[in-house]
Every structure is written in structure tokens, then in C-alpha cells.
């Protein structure tokens, strides 16, 4: 069985994203980049399937600048077997749908039974890529999985909803997006870290995947970012000094909000 996990390198999510006012892209220079923490859940899900089904091949695929290799390495250190990095200056400025198109082409080469993505990335956050991948591969998409099981050539998930969950299933191969409540991702074992460098990583360009420079990157983008504005500053909270009535005051405040 082949599982492809799509992973993205993002600026350290505990910081605030800065936007380049000219290109309107997220500034990545001088910012620590990490494997998107959201992707660790899908890698963990793949590794758990691998543990239960020996022989399962887990491939992490990323599109991004050369240094996205570090994110792939983290996946390999956790236990994935192989990496695929699609990197090419022509890809810079790709919109989400182009990203999906390119990723789909890279994923197809791996002959996957299951493609796992996070629900949305921690930086650009569009949540459109997994749907795009499913479209280009002609596969069903099961979204928001908080639980995932495989049986009889099918994948069944519990889809998180506001009210509870729905149980849905699809025939493999399929694309599944997972949420942060699906598991607790492991730390890479020290041995895994040492071995990660020895595992194979295919490095591909857009041309390798059959795309011309016009079909991808800024030129191929059908979507254009027009502008941006910082989120409204949150108002400073109220500080209650305890003169003996603080508890009552807080309780009243919460009652007024109807949370208690």
C-alpha cells in the first residue's frame, strides 16, 4: 500500500506572518521555517497505518523552495520512507489551484492508495489545495477526519462537524484531510533523525512534471492577491483587581456572555 502525505514548510507559526508589500507574498527570508505542525498529524496517521500494515510505503511530498527539504526531512525522521520535493523558480507565486495541479502530478507518480493532507495550512490557510488535488487525480475527497480506518479496500472516517461527527467512507484510492484531533504526533526518534539524510528524496522541477513555465507560478495563476490589511487589534481586556468581590464580578461577566 502506498500513502502520500502532502507537507508544507511554513514560517514558525508562533510568530506573526509578515507580508511583503510589493509581491503580497508571505515573507520567508530571515524567518525560521518549520514543517507545518498541521502536517504532523497526517504524517502520524500514515505511520500508524504503516505500523498496522507492514510493507506500507509512506511518501512525503512538498512543493516549495529548496529549503522545504528540511520539512521533508522531518517527515522522514518521523518514519516516512521517501520524500519528493517539487522545487523550481518558475513555481514561485503559484496560487492554490496551481499548487494543487502540480502536486497532483507529483503524487500520481507514486501510485497512491491514499493521499493525506491537513485540512488547511498554518500560513496561507486557503484550505483549497486538497480539493484541487482530488479533482486533478479524479479521486474522492473525505474532509475533516478526526478518525480514520481502512478496511476492505475502503477508507472510513469520522468527519468532525460543529454538532458531532459524520461517518463517511470512500473506495480507495482517495484523498483525506485530517484535523488536529486525529492523534498525537510522535517526536522523531533519534535514530530516525540520523537516518533521515540517508533516505531517498526525488527532486523534481515543473518541467519534469510536464508543465511549461506559462502554466505555473505567477504566470499560471488565475487568482491575484489585490491587497491586505492587518486584522483589527483586539481591545485590551478588563483587569479586575481583587478587593474580595473579584470572583462574583467574573462570574457576572461570564453570565452576561451566557457562557455560564
Amino acid at each position, binding site marked *: 500500500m502506498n500513502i502520500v502525505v502532502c507537507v508544507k514548510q511554513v514560517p514558525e507559526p508562533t510568530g506573526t506572518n509578515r507580508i511583503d508589500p510589493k509581491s503580497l507574498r508571505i515573507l520567508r527570508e530571515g524567518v525560521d521555517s518549520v514543517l507545518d505542525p498541521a502536517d504532523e498529524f497526517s504524517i502520524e496517521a500514515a505511520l500508524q497505518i504503516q505500523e498496522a500494515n507492514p510493507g506500507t510505503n509512506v511518501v512525503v511530498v512538498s512543493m516549495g523552495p529548496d529549503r522545504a527539504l528540511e520539512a521533508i*526531512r522531518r517527515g522522514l*525522521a518521523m518514519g516516512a520512507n521517501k520524500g519528493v520535493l517539487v522545487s523550481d523558480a518558475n513555481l514561485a507565486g503559484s496560487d492554490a489551484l496551481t499548487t494543487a495541479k502540480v502536486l497532483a502530478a507529483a503524487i500520481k507518480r507514486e501510485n497512491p492508495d491514499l493521499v493525506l493532507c491537513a485540512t488547511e495550512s498554518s500560513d496561507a490557510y486557503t484550505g483549497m489545495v486538497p480539493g484541487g488535488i482530488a479533482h486533478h487525480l479524479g479521486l474522492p475527497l473525505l474532509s475533516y477526519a478526526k478518525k480514520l480506518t481502512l478496511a476492505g479496500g475502503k477508507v472510513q472516517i469520522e468527519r468532525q462537524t460543529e454538532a458531532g461527527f459524520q461517518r463517511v467512507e470512500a473506495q480507495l484510492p482517495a484523498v483525506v484531510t485530517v484535523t488536529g484531533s486525529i492523534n498525537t504526533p510522535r*517526536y*522523531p*526518534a*533519534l*535514530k530516525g*533523525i*540520523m537516518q*533521515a*539524510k540517508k533516505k531517498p528524496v526525488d527532486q523534481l522541477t515543473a518541467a519534469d512534471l510536464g508543465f511549461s513555465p506559462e502554466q505555473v507560478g505567477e504566470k499560471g495563476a488565475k487568482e491575484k492577491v489585490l491587497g491586505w490589511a492587518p486584522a483589527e487589534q483586539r481591545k485590551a481586556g478588563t483587569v479586575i483587581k481583587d478587593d474580595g468581590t473579584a470572583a462574583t464580578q467574573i462570574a457576572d461577566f461570564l453570565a452576561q456572555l451566557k457562557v455560564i
Partner: protein
Amino acid sequence: MDFQLPEELIDLKKSIREFVDKELIPVSQQVEDEDKIPDNVLKQMKELGYFGLPFPEEYGGMGVGYMGYCVALEELGRANAAYSNILGAHTSIAGGTIALGGNAQQKEKYLRPMAEGKMLGAFALTEPGSGSDAASIRTTAFKKGDRYIINGQKIWITNGPYADVITVYASTDKTLGPRGISAFIVEKGTPGLEYGKVDHKMGLHGSHTCPLFFEDMEVAEENRLGPEGTGFYTAMKALDGGRVSLAAGAVGGAQAMLEASVKHAQERQQFGKPIGENQAIQWMLADMEVEIHATRLMVYHAAWKLDQGQRASHEAAMVKVYASEMAGRVADKAVQIHGGMAYMHDSPIERGYRDVRILRIYEGTSEVQRMIIAGDLLKNSSKN
């Protein structure tokens, strides 16, 4: 000449730092207060491979050599010293003697489970009457058929209260002095192995020592490490690695105290400005930085030498004495910069100040290290 760590070790360092920051530092004060590392934390460290860092891969280790081991201990040293202390006794000296002096069967039976975190090790050399003069131990081992009968007493044995495997040093021939000392692998539960009360220590809370008593304790001949009379030399060789890695832990501890001091110097305001704007404070910070950097380079050099398979007793002695005294000076300055809050029990600086004090005593006191260094100089046998 290349001052960059190899890429795998940079990854290793990053990933250990993340683990230390997320899992170890948050419970450091709890470890101090409860005098115990939470079981799940130790379990996690064992599963991730922390207990087998320098051991060969063929025996379940990580095979990262002394350099990788030191990089790891430097990161671990940033948290409560109990972590690196338990790990150091297990790895450098208990596991180290088996790795250096053990045969294939002994390594398979003991080193592998130790490396995999399934067995914890301790190293028992010191006795009430024998500390710095380690060759003067009085514990004896008499051969009887294919077994040895061991009698004697050890004190302050780190991991002693719960170790699964203990390397015990005993004299098999009193007339030969150090050449009559042999090393034995003793398993927990061996009849005749008795435990004293766990010691109350100044620091290193969360890591435990106790006395061990051997009363006609029988150990199979196959558990002797190397030929009779080689035990002392194996121990001294393991201590070379131990001293270098201990210094690595000291660098990490000092680094954490420097970082806390820089932050405090920027944040704490007195006389209407951050205290860090005073030259008196700046000079302390600068001196801390210089000494930490110097020690780190000494650690890497000594570790590199060990990884080349060269004897590094001289370098190990130098880095041990320098690192342990450096850590003391850095901790003292950190207390000064933090003022009264560093004197309070819930301050990591207060804990660090007590914890670094042991570094000048165990694995050979500062005086013993200077004896080694000066002895080499006077014999004119020191090599650069």
C-alpha cells in the same frame, strides 16, 4: 579544519532542543519539588533513544559517537540537571565500561537493552574509604569455581536505587594494587546485593544515589568484564568519555543561565533603566559568554579526539576541570544578576547554583584533574 557540526548532528541538536523545551523544561521545577522525574517522561526519553546515544548501532545504539552524545548532553543540560545526570551515569560510565571492556555476549545481553532503554545502568567504584584514591578500594572478589564471591561496600552510587545493571569494581588480587582490580556486571536482584537508604543531597534532585552492600554476593565468571586486573583501566578509560560529556552538560546548564541572565538584564528596571545598561552587569554577561564559548570548543575538541579513537585523558581532564569551574562562576554571576529572586527556592537559578556544585567533585575532583594534567606536563608526555 571545519568548525561546523555535521548536518545530522545539527538536526539532532535541533530536535533534542525541541524535546527539551517542550517536554523537559516545563516539568523541571516539578522534578525538583517532587525529587522525581515523571515516569512517562523517562519512558519517552528511553523510547526515543536517549539512553543509547554513543553506543554502536550493532548493539541497538544510535552510533552518534562522543560528538553526538555531547551535542545531546549540551541540550539536555539546559533543563534540570537530573536528566543529564541519570543519563550520564547510565551511558558514559556504566554502559561505557561494558562497551569498552565487554565481549560480544555481554554486549548483546546488557549493552543492547541498556541502549534501547530497557535496562538502566549504574557504575559502582567509590567506597567510604576510597574516593579520589580510587585504586585503594577494599571490596574483594574471590574466585570459587566458575563464580566470584564479592564482599564490600560502595557509596553514593548514581542510579543505584533502581539500576538493572551495575558495573562493580572489586579487587581480585590485593597485592597488585590497581592491576589487581577487576570489573563485574551485577544484575539487580542478585542475592547478597543490599541497598542502603537513598541519600539526601544538596542538589540533583530527581536523580538518586545510595550505598550498596555486597554480602557474599555471587557473580558468574562470565559476568567479569575483560581479563582479571583490567577493571581499573577500563573504568579510567570510560571516565575519559564521562568527563567530556559531563563538561558538555555543564556548557548547556551555563548557557541556560546566561540566556536567563540576558533576559533579566533587559527586563529588570532599577534607577529608571534596565539593569543591563550598567557596565557592571554587562561585564558579567560578557565574561559568562566568553567562558561558555571557550568550554564548548574544548568539549568539541575532546569529543572529536575520542571519536578518532585517540586517547584523550589529558584533554578530558582539562575540559572537566575547566567546565565544572566555569559553570560555578557562571551560576554565581547569574545569581548576582537576578538578585534576591535567585535566592528563592522556586527559581531555576537557585537550583542551577546548587546543581553545578557537584561537577567539581564527582568523576574526579578538580584537584584530581589538575594532578592528571600536571602529571602529564611534568612527564613531558602531553601532546597537542
